[in-house]
């Protein structure tokens, strides 16, 4: 049995009273807390002030926990900015022995996006793990790969911009099942 999927439509500009935000995955003073911040930008380099960024990540031990501890959601502000306080996930070990470098999965929704964009946040201070990561390793261009790496910009603070379009467009993914 295979039922046809329900199509995606834009989140529109008015989602804020329907979708509760959760920008603190841990308290700001929790041990190991990090901040990930950035902007969502359009093809003209202008901020996207009506976007929604969702993240999903493993815990510090590299395991995806049950429940929604590893999930966050932030509405962009007037400057296109978003920020999460979380912990850096550990490397994820797959059953087949593959190891994925620490990363977050990101979905970004916005007015003008008829379906979300899917990307990943890796970390600039995980160079060794990044070199061995099967997804980063499968991206041919250094500049493309760089769009997936958050830059350490201060103590426990990382910067990750999402560029929807243009020469510096972030690398976006799709999956066989999702129809993203």
């Amino acid at each position, binding site marked *: 049995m295979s039922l046809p999927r329900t199509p995606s439509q834009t989140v529109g500009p008015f989602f804020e009273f*329907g979708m509760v935000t959760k920008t603190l995955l841990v308290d700001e003073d929790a041990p190991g807390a990090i901040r990930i911040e950035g902007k969502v930008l359009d093809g003209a380099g202008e901020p996207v002030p009506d976007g929604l960024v969702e993240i999903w990540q493993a815990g510090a031990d590299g395991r995806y926990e049950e429940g929604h501890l590893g999930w966050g959601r932030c509405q962009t502000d007037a400057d296109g900015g978003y920020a999460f306080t979380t912990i850096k996930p550990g490397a994820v070990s797959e059953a087949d022995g593959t190891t994925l470098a620490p990363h977050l999965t990101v979905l970004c929704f916005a007015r003008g996006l008829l379906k979300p964009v899917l990307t990943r946040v890796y970390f600039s201070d995980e160079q060794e793990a990044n070199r061995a990561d099967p997804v980063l390793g499968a991206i041919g261009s250094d500049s493309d790969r760089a769009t997936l790496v958050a830059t350490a910009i201060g103590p426990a603070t990382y910067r990750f911009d999402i560029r929807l379009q243009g020469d510096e467009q972030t690398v976006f993914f799709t999956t066989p099942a999702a129809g993203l």
Partner: protein
Amino acid sequence: MSERAQELQTIDDDERATRDADPAYLTPEYVGTRLRSPRRPLLLLPQRLSELTGPAFGQDDVRPGDSDLTTQHAGEPLGERIIVSGRVMGSDGRPVRNALVEVWQANAAGRYLHRVDQHPAPLDPNFTGGGRVVTDDDGRYRFITIKPGAYPWKNHDNAWRPAHIHFSVFGRAFTERLVTQMYFPGDPLFAYDPIYQSVRDPAARERMISSFDLASTKPEWALAYSYDIVLGGSGATPLENA
């Protein structure tokens, strides 16, 4: 990099949209897509733990009143009271239990409670327009709300959105995440709406239209519409011709 893994397969979004349920990112008739649509090919991710897991919710994450948009204020909202219910399923037909379903909508006059909405129609002090519910063991959800009005926007001259309720649904995997819009049967605005028309397959478009549901109406109280939602399917659906 010493050893490079095989490069990821690329997917042409426009080509995919001609055979898939989802719209293409670039749908020029919907002006908002022009500067916000990615233009480079998408990379096909292998289905690994990060794609096959996702946040899980439960009945504790919502309050009973969250699913009744007509009782969130001192008085009753104006407009036509309706019951909206349905099932969330995987493409395998099995129910998606404990799915968090969030909805938001305009009021009966077609006005959103939002600082950016400038439509000169009245706000309703008794209607916010947001609700949430978690599906039961059969994947069922149910909301009570009022029928939203059509809504003007500035996409083109004299542009109006058909009446719709926004839905956000969490499936079993984060990559099954769906945000969509539920429409009402027989709306004369469908033919003129680039967002509805962004779905290229007419049969797929119709899956976004709710059905009048006589069995769920409450006599002398509310009409009812049913709306089933089918999510991606946890990797069960192979990508054809990719």
